[in-house]
């Protein structure tokens, strides 16, 4: 059965590491739903979060193949129950004098921020789980979504556990 899984990787900050990882997905026919990468507390290491969809056999292979890459230090699965997984989204919504206040009210309910205002539109910044963001989209859709951009999931394990090398 196919399911969505969030993987968290600690990698060496070397030349070509990102292309090795994305290449691995491409050549083995695995789909990446999202991928985010950023620096860590250690300048030599980067942290990558990848969301993938596949059945158990494929997910196991993905983890093993990632572990085979020399630059990859640790791979863990972020399980929803003991992790925090969030995404950042900017949404540009049509808004004129008659609809603006309604949209702002919806944004407030979702604890989203208005980060840009013009005569015809609003840009809203929202952070949250996939479900919260889907809910927000549903609410503002009737006003007209002009465009949006999603950062992709990023996450950490809850509690004292850390990804170490």
């Amino acid at each position, binding site marked *: 059965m196919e399911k969505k899984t969030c993987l968290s990787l600690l*990698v*060496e900050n070397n*030349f*070509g590491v990102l*292309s*090795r990882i994305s*290449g691995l997905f491409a*050549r083995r026919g695995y789909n990446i739903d999202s991928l985010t990468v950023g620096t860590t507390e250690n300048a030599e290491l980067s942290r990558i979060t990848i969301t993938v969809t596949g059945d158990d*056999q494929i997910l*196991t*292979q993905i983890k*093993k*193949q990632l*572990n*085979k*890459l*020399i*630059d*990859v*230090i*640790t791979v863990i699965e972020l399980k929803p129950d003991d992790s925090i997984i969030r995404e950042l989204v900017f949404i540009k919504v049509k808004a004129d004098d008659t609809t603006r206040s309604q949209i702002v009210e919806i944004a407030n309910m979702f604890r989203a921020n208005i980060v840009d205002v013009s005569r015809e539109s609003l840009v809203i910044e929202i952070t949250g789980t996939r479900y919260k963001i889907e809910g927000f989209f549903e609410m503002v859709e009737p006003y007209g979504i002009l465009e949006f951009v999603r950062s992709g999931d990023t996450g950490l394990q809850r509690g004292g556990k850390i990804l170490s*090398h």
Partner: protein
Amino acid sequence: MIPLLASKLILKCLERENVEFVFGYPGGAVLPLYEAFRTSPIKHILVRNEQTAPHYASGYARESGRVGVCLATSGPGATNLVTGIATAYLDSIPIVAITGQVDRALIGTDAFQEADITGATAPFTKHSYLVQNAADIPRIIREAFHIASTGRPGPVLIDIPRDVQLENVKTGLTYDKVDIMGYKPNLNGHSGQIKRAIKKIKEAEKPVIYAGGGVVLGNAQSELLAFAEKNNIPVITSLMGIGAFPEDHPLYCGIVGSHGYKYSNVVMNGADLIINIGARMSNRATSHLTKFEKDTDFVHIDIDPAEIGKNMETSIPIVGDAKTVLSELIQKDTITDHAAWLAEIETIRSENPLVYDADPPCSDLINPKVLFKDMSEMTADNTTVVGDVGLNQIWSALYYRIIKNRRYYTSGGLGTMGYSIPAACGASFATLDKPKEIFIVCGDGSFQMSMGELGVIAEHQLNVNIILITNTKLGMVRQLQFDNYGKGHYSGTDINFDIDFMKLAEAYGIKSYKVDKNADFNKVLPEAIKHQGPTLIQCQVHPDFIRI
């Protein structure tokens, strides 16, 4: 510390890794390295096309058990290495490929002879480096040899811009101990899994050991022999596993797969426990194994965790080195007796005998199966045979017997035509101090893919014997055309020119023979073996002899 030119430092680092030979081809982006070769004890062997250089390194590595090294310039030199690197990757052969690159400032500008070779080879290298700073050279070369030769072996590429080779480095030969955060191969099997495996082995009534290239690469032949004998378990090999187990042993049960022996496939299908040691269960090995019982158990021993469960569901995975895990298994108390199963295997064997005749009968020319059977009787116990790809490969794999210290190399995973000549030359360079019999087996198709390398054979008077099987056809593809589309549906598989191979050999000063009868082959073979230096025996086989 006196500054050292980076190109010299590179060769010093190779010396530290005990490199004797570099198989390469020069060009603009490696000029500084070639200048450094002049005063280095490392011998540079000039191949005749970069495409063959990784195969030399591969044959050298397989024969010597050490890392083979090849070298090419940037751009076309580097891209010519790609197939050979992929060949080594699919067969897990430890090689290091060094390429020149354009100057750092020119990278990404589509400069003359620029190619993104780390990008191009990413799918087929275990790891690769683009050297940005000459001070990193000692660490990178150390790591490259370590990564290539440990864990599951494989090719590593080092791409070095020309201007990096010209830097002066003050650090010298620093960096001794390798410490790579993300690379810690696991050699010892998990003790809990070993216990579970032992339990299964004790319970099994019809166990089979399926030995792959991992046993050969891991030098675990004597451990496998001891384990199989102690427990009376029959041994089947993959194509890459040829040489893992002596073929004259009563427990030996042949080669499995679409191109294996029929009886081996029947035996494997009948097993209730398959102990897979270092084989990846590729489609070619398992396509004739469709009838696994639901209760067939699989123990899979492999040094690469990603192999386990990739192609076949595994009941008991053991991640570890073949030699280490087998030694652990031997120590456990498992002595078992499978007399009934072994008797059943004898029946299977007699019901599915090896067929030496052509089907349909076609030939009063050479019977290649008989040729390799006879050759088994007439060659030394430490002979190395390098098979190319095609019918010649399967005939030599199935009918030349690998016993005692004999070895058989071929491009098993990628199936690269043109492998045999350069790989045998590499093996020959590895045995220069102790010359032995090395045979190249190729067809007229594969021979022509690498025949430029006759130049190297002649130049160095390598002690190799070429068994050239000619039928003026691309036999294996022709067989596929026959099987898939029927008789007469041949397309693109005729070699429409009868080459005078005797004159060609003469041009290179290679002693040559042409035979079209098995009896004549048997007459000239001892002569060819006795001859000091290279020989070629052209063996005429009927074009319709297309059965393996």
